[in-house]
């Protein structure tokens, strides 16, 4: 049922027989996931919110940069530095407070994709790299959800719907990604600011048509748009009987590896030690790091560095599960000996960013804060 407020808001839809009350209720009941809130995601999110799509999920982990504003019209100058999903949500709420917005502040991975995508009816892929595009395709095939797809480059766009019932998937079109470096990215090749507006709204149109069950969906057809020529062309897209989507062998894989992206092993830390004054500077500058005091509880009672966390050296192995192996750590003890051992324990467990504070709390007392008693 539509509320009175909804009837007023969506009246231009309601008076068209192709939408009507029934169609508007379908829009209200629909759940659409937008992956990427950049160039393509921006117009899709704004128009789907305006149209009254009831639940809109946003997946992005990026923050707004000034160089985004040339095309990502959902974000404004005041949003620079904000998370894109927060900035997008604010704009969408302003356009239409009646829609529910679900924010997924993550990068889509093989581990989380199925869980995130499962609850939605339609997925719109507005990402910018091959590994994620293959991941979205494969997850859509596995979950049996249509993937309203678009991609852009400079003055050109491509759009279609993949993984619809009986239709082709992205792998039917392109079984493999290009090797890295052969096809330039937008960041290298540039993109006309208006282009994602045009192409994103083709995506939004197809999302709305799928929800309404109206018209001819862009399934089995690859739409090509050339902004310079101002020409649209259409190519036939067939389901490839040899594709993994047809043979039933689809499963999620390591997409970076598939796309030839070699993860550079992180270089070993050049410095394994840090002086007390530098640690003080890190605290004052509110650097993102965790200070661990590996002394015993009674020593901790004598005197401590205010931001420190007590994990006695002997407890470190069993309490390691509490710690994020990717975070930055500084360890200290009384003189620096036990904490050096603690650093070795963490590094052996795969922690990459671990520093030992030289001289321990004794040096801290001498160099930084004499009010901390030496003992």
């Amino acid at each position: 049922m539509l509320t009175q407020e909804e009837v007023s808001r969506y009246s231009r839809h309601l008076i068209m027989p192709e939408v009507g009350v029934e169609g508007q209720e379908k829009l209200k009941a629909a759940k659409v996931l937008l992956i990427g809130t950049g160039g393509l995601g921006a117009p899709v999110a704004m128009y789907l919110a305006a149209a009254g799509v009831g639940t809109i999920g946003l997946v992005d982990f990026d923050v707004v940069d000034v160089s985004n504003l040339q095309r990502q019209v959902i974000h404004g100058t005041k949003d620079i530095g904000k998370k894109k999903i927060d900035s997008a949500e604010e704009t969408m709420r302003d356009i239409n407070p009646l829609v529910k917005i679900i924010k997924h502040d993550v990068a889509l991975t093989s581990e989380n994709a199925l869980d995130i995508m499962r609850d939605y009816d339609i997925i719109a892929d507005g990402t910018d790299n091959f590994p994620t595009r293959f991941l979205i395709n494969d997850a859509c095939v596995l979950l049996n959800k249509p993937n309203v797809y678009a991609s852009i480059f400079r003055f050109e766009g491509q759009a279609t719907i993949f993984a619809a019932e009986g239709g082709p998937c992205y792998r039917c079109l392109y079984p493999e990604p290009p090797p890295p470096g052969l096809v330039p990215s937008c960041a290298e090749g540039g993109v006309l600011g208006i282009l994602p507006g045009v192409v994103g709204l083709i995506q939004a149109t197809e999302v709305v048509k799928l929800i309404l069950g109206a018209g001819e969906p862009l399934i089995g057809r690859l739409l090509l748009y050339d902004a310079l020529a101002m020409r649209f062309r259409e190519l036939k897209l067939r389901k490839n009987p040899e594709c993994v989507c047809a043979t039933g062998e689809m499963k999620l894989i390591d997409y970076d590896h598939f796309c030839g992206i070699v993860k550079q092993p992180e270089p070993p830390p050049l410095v394994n030690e840090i002086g007390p004054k530098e640690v003080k500077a890190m605290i004052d500058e509110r650097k993102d790091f965790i200070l661990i005091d590996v002394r015993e509880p009674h020593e901790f009672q004598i005197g401590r560095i205010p931001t420190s966390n007590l994990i006695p050296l002997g407890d470190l192995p069993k309490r390691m599960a509490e710690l994020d192996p990717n975070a930055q750590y500084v360890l200290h003890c009384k003189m620096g000996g036990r904490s050096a051992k603690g650093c070795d324990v963490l590094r052996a467990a795969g922690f990459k960013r671990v520093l030992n504070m030289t001289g321990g709390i004794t040096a801290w007392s001498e160099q930084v804060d004499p009010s901390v008693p030496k003992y």
Partner: protein
Amino acid sequence: MAKILIPTPLRQYAEKNNSVDVAAGTVGEALASLTTQFPDLRKNLFNDEGKLRSFVNVYVNDEDIRYLQKDATPVADGDTISIVPSIAGGRC
């Protein structure tokens, strides 16, 4: 003559042409003629074994040559051959 449409990402290897007219009886001949004229295109279109790369599709008019006769697909005067590489941009 058939017209080969060069997509934006590959124009840099084709002296910025967006289309090239070639005289050819098949798609294979048309692409050979194109890469003879613009040798830099070759490594973007074909792998080391001379096979069309799997992220590049070729269409005669609106039909994918993989579902026609591949390289041997005949081309007639006035046909349009489209080269369509995958592009990934969007969030950027």
